[in-house]
């Protein structure tokens, strides 16, 4: 499947490079710490956060348990409201459907609002092969696209770029794509935003086809929801004549009322705001208002395989808020690119290996890209127990076992020889030679202690699979590791 960055080194090597890039690390550290503090404040404002989180989890779990029923219901309501529903089993099929729909309009340009699903399937590249230019309109996506770069964060994909770099990219590249950057552009954020506004406005005003994802789809009404800040979403959703939305099948909620939970938890978890500047909802088409043709492409691409895993399926509850990235000590050090996928950070570490399988080196190493400190679980607005899934996936990599690929049950062999062990060791060497990366999280480590007695968490998991391990001491894992050099030295405590 597409979506793996080709030639991507496994996590430890990629992380190693990132750790030595001081600009990248400085940008990331500033960014994640800023959002982290703001989020905590936004969450503290609502006294019923725990109840909202639990309700969000239950709504998503219920939906997943009855996903067949809700998919059929959604298809009916969207169709009744004037939309057309398409089903895509994998990335290639989704790309083909979208390309054919665009070609049928006779257009060779589309405007896009930021969407993880279309990045996951590599839609822009697929469209380009068909002679169709897709313009990203989210400011950060524009920076990434003009910089011929890759996104590094779910919410702020250009988080790794500072203002000086952005200025240079705009000054150099905008003229290639349309309206050039203003003469004498400086690096103040307001001027850069103005340059983007002018550059994109001409594209919005003439666009005939818009492409989006969606944050939620309501089965009972057929309503789609897009949550955004800049207004580029509204432009793409309302000005074009044709709208094509590509949405993962797990984005369904059963009822309109369910939005009352997520429209409270999502903005506070992602941008740390009481409410994001713009939220658009639409149900099929509306006479004389907005696109008169609406297509919904429902995307599987590994989601049903993920659903088949009793432990791993909880990853499908994710509402892509990115809170788990911002608290992750490993993400902060390694940067988003090290995860080799459009889904970086803790969620990427459990989602990518499930959507893509664990055959490739990067996907086999991702479950080790964590110190299991548990901070991601603490902040997750749908209570995904990321450490639990990480440990589960480590077991799968190291020991093999039954899993599902493309809808078929397959038995995975244990990672060849000591490949998993080697991957684990490399990850460990990186992580533990940077103790600062872990210290933040260590205080929370007790929360994962329930994993400790039977299987050794962390990079040592593969190790313990082939060696007898002493009972896990109560001391922090990092200390244990350093004291024993990962168990190679006799445990002399």
């Amino acid at each position, binding site marked *: 499947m597409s979506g793996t960055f080709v030639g991507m080194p496994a996590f430890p090597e990629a992380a190693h490079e990132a750790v030595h890039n001081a600009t990248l690390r400085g940008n990331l550290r500033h960014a994640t710490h800023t959002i982290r503090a703001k989020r905590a404040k936004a969450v503290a404002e609502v006294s019923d956060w725990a109840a909202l989180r639990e309700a969000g989890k239950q709504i998503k779990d219920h939906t997943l348990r009855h996903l067949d029923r809700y998919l059929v219901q959604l298809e009916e309501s969207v169709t009744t409201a004037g939309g057309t529903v398409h089903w895509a089993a994998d990335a290639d099929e989704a790309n083909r459907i979208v390309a054919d729909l665009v070609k049928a309009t006779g257009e060779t340009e589309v405007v896009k609002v930021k969407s993880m699903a279309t990045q996951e399937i590599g839609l822009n590249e697929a469209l380009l092969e068909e002679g169709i230019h897709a313009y990203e309109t989210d400011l950060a996506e524009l920076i990434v696209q003009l910089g011929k770069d890759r996104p590094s964060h779910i919410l702020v994909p250009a988080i790794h770029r500072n203002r000086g770099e952005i200025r240079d990219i705009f000054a150099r590249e905008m003229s290639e794509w349309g309206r050039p950057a203003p003469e004498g552009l400086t690096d103040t954020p307001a001027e850069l935003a103005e340059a983007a506004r002018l550059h994109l*406005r001409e594209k919005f005003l003439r666009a005939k086809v818009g492409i989006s994802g969606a944050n939620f789809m309501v089965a009972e009404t057929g309503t789609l929801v897009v949550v955004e800040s800049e207004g580029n979403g509204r432009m793409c959703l309302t000005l074009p004549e044709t709208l094509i939305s590509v949405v993962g099948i797990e984005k369904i909620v059963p009822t309109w009322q369910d939005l009352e939970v997520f429209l409270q938890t999502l903005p506070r978890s992602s941008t740390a705001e009481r*409410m994001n500047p713009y939220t658009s909802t639409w149900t099929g088409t509306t006479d004389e208002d907005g696109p008169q043709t609406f297509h919904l492409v429902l995307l599987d691409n590994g989601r049903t395989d993920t659903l088949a895993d009793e432990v791993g399926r909880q990853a499908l509850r994710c509402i892509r808020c990115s809170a788990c990235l911002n608290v992750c000590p490993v993400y902060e050090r390694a940067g988003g690119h090290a995860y080799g996928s459009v889904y970086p950070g803790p969620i990427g570490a459990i989602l990518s290996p499930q959507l893509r399988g664990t055959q490739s080196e990067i996907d086999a190493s991702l479950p080790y890209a964590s110190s299991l400190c548990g901070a991601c679980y603490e902040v997750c607005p749908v209570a995904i127990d990321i450490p639990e899934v990480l440990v589960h996936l480590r077991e799968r990599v190291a020991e093999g076992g039954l899993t599902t690929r493309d809808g078929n049950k397959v038995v995975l062999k244990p990672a060849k020889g000591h490949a998993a062990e080697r991957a684990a060791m490399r990850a460990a060497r990186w992580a533990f030679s940077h103790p600062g990366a872990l210290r933040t999280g260590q205080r929370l480590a007790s929360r994962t202690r329930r994993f400790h007695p039977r299987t050794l968490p962390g990079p040592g998991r593969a190790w313990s699979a082939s060696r007898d391990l002493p009972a896990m001491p109560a001391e922090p894992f990092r200390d244990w590791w350093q004291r024993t050099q990962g168990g190679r030295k006799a445990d002399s405590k």
Partner: protein
Amino acid sequence: MSSRGVILGRVRRAIADVRQDDTPYGQAIDRSYLREHGARSVAETVDLLAENLADYRAVVHRTTDDELSELLMRLLAERGTRTVLVPPELPSHWLKAVDATRVHDRAQSTPAELDRVDSVVTACAVAIAETGTIVLDGGPDQGRRRVTLVPDHHICVVHVPDQVVSSVPQALERLDPTRPLTWISGPSATSDIELDRVEGVHGPRTLEVVLVSGQPRAEATS
């Protein structure tokens, strides 16, 4: 087999391990979260709306129905507005004191035409105090979604306290999901450059919200 059949088949096999559970959806979810946060009087709820709107950099004005037209005239004049977009059924007395040329959004109007208009004045469907949000539902006093998107200056009139609810759950109860909705909380913004918040990217860079109470100002309870 069609991909529809393939995907639904995979879903059914994937969840085959899950115990049958026929609890009606209405009872399946623990909704013990709050319907609104905190107890406030009607006047306090309106004050909170004003406060939260301002916190997200909307410019807030308060007036009475009698004085609305004067206020709108002043706001548009101060802005130097020469042309103002008007939804089909905006109450005619709102703009009776306004000099700017009225522009109507027709189905055939192009986005480029709207881009040349200075300002837009609309009503709203509901406003949410806790989050500082106004919601438009495309009603005849609000117009198509694009009229509040393309012009750079939006004045939105909210009737208080009738159109104000406390919370997101209460707003969803009042709204009709079959209508295209736009929820607006402050002017458009981005934090994509080093997380510095910059107001105004693609939507209107200036959002003014006018809270109008029915009674003359002196009798207002707030």
